[in-house]
């Protein structure tokens, strides 16, 4: 498999503040990846670096094997990007916005765009500025997808949606993924639905990568172990401790398994949910603000 996105020691500094640092990762073709982290953790910066809206302070990022800053037309034709604020022309009607997309994008799929607009009942004559937030987000998504990109990058696409709009948005996205096998990266600060929609996660906090992997292997390699405090040290010798909490006579530890678990009878082992694992890593990064790159 080839890499869609590949970052090497990528960093971006704004003034004295590093928004992103020491990021090394690669995302494979055909995958749907969630970029997860709290607000201000560097998710938008990473996506903007990926499409060449920002240039790196150090390191590099490549999309389809070339820098988004070089040969932009060749690269950007294959990339669909929707920024967080769904930038569209408020004075355009829906139909005009679609014509705009058609005239700017050589690979534009007019049939898809019109079918999707009709299916969602979006009024063609209405001005973009008069649509609801959810409708505007749908138009922005349709514009990104109708250019038939090989990779779609979406910054917080569902953050402000009501449940129905959220569902319709994800349906459009997933059906397109099924039709075109495009790779998708979507950032999110909410953890809802991730397992349903994504194959892989990239957890980012404080400008550094905390965890990256396929959801299935992430779940398989993490366990909660609960046992007596005096034996706590046993598990931390063999396994990486992600988070730990003490309550009275017991200590609960989220560990990344580096070897099979061998524990005494006084221990219980639980399988954490994806949300538990992600929160464990976010908690760890908050307690060690220097950041540990996984």
């Amino acid at each position, binding site marked *: 498999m080839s890499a869609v996105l590949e970052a090497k020691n990528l960093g971006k500094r704004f003034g004295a503040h590093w928004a992103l640092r020491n990021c090394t990762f690669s995302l494979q073709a055909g*995958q*749907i990846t969630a970029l997860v982290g709290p607000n201000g953790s560097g998710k938008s910066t990473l996506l903007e670096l990926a499409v060449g809206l920002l240039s790196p302070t150090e390191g590099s990022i490549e999309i389809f094997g070339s820098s988004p800053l070089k040969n932009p037309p060749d690269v950007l034709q294959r990339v669909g990007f929707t920024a967080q604020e769904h930038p569209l022309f408020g004075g355009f009607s829906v139909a005009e916005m679609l014509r705009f997309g058609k005239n700017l994008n050589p690979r534009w799929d007019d049939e898809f765009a019109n079918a999707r607009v009709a299916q969602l009942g979006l009024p063609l004559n209405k001005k973009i500025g008069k649509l609801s937030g959810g409708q505007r987000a749908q138009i922005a998504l349709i514009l990104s997808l109708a250019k038939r990109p090989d990779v779609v990058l979406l910054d917080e696409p569902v953050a402000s949606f009501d449940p129905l709009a959220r569902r319709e948005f*994800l349906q459009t996205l997933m059906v397109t*993924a099924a039709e075109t096998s495009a790779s998708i990266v979507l950032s999110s600060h909410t953890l809802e639905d991730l*397992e*349903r*929609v994504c*194959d892989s996660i990239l957890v980012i906090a404080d400008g550094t990568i905390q965890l990256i992997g396929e959801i*299935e292997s992430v779940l398989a390699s993490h366990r909660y172990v609960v046992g007596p405090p005096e034996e706590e040290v046993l598990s931390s010798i063999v396994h990486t401790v992600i988070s730990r909490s003490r309550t009275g006579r017991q200590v609960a530890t989220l560990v990344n398994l580096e070897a099979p678990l061998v524990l005494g009878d006084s221990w219980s082992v639980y*399988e954490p949910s994806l949300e538990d694992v992600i929160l464990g890593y976010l908690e760890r990064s908050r307690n060690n603000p220097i950041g540990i790159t996984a």
Partner: protein
Amino acid sequence: MIEFFLDRRSGTSPYMQLVNQVRQALLLDRMRVGDQLPTIKTVVGHLAINPNTVQKAYRELERQGLIESTPGVGTFVKQSLAGPAVSVHPELRQSLAEWLERARDANLDDETIVALFESAMQATVAEERV
């Protein structure tokens, strides 16, 4: 045609939930040999779920020899899981329902009922092994 559901609170992964739902439908004779399964795109549109997950579930069912995909035609049930005894299901279900009624009359809660069932099941399995 089978309609899939996802239980968000269940600890089971979405992919396993799809596999289990097909297996259960086959066990209970709700799906039979030759029945068509929805296309991946249909399932994806219905559940707003990652297409790779549906593909993986279908591949797993294919690996188990239960379904078969023919490109351009569709995916069909190849083998049933319902035993020849499927005709006795209604009768067994009825007697189980009567047993459940007796258990509730005796003020047993659900947890105790499940515990009783499981311990009886384990005991009979152990007996068979002897």
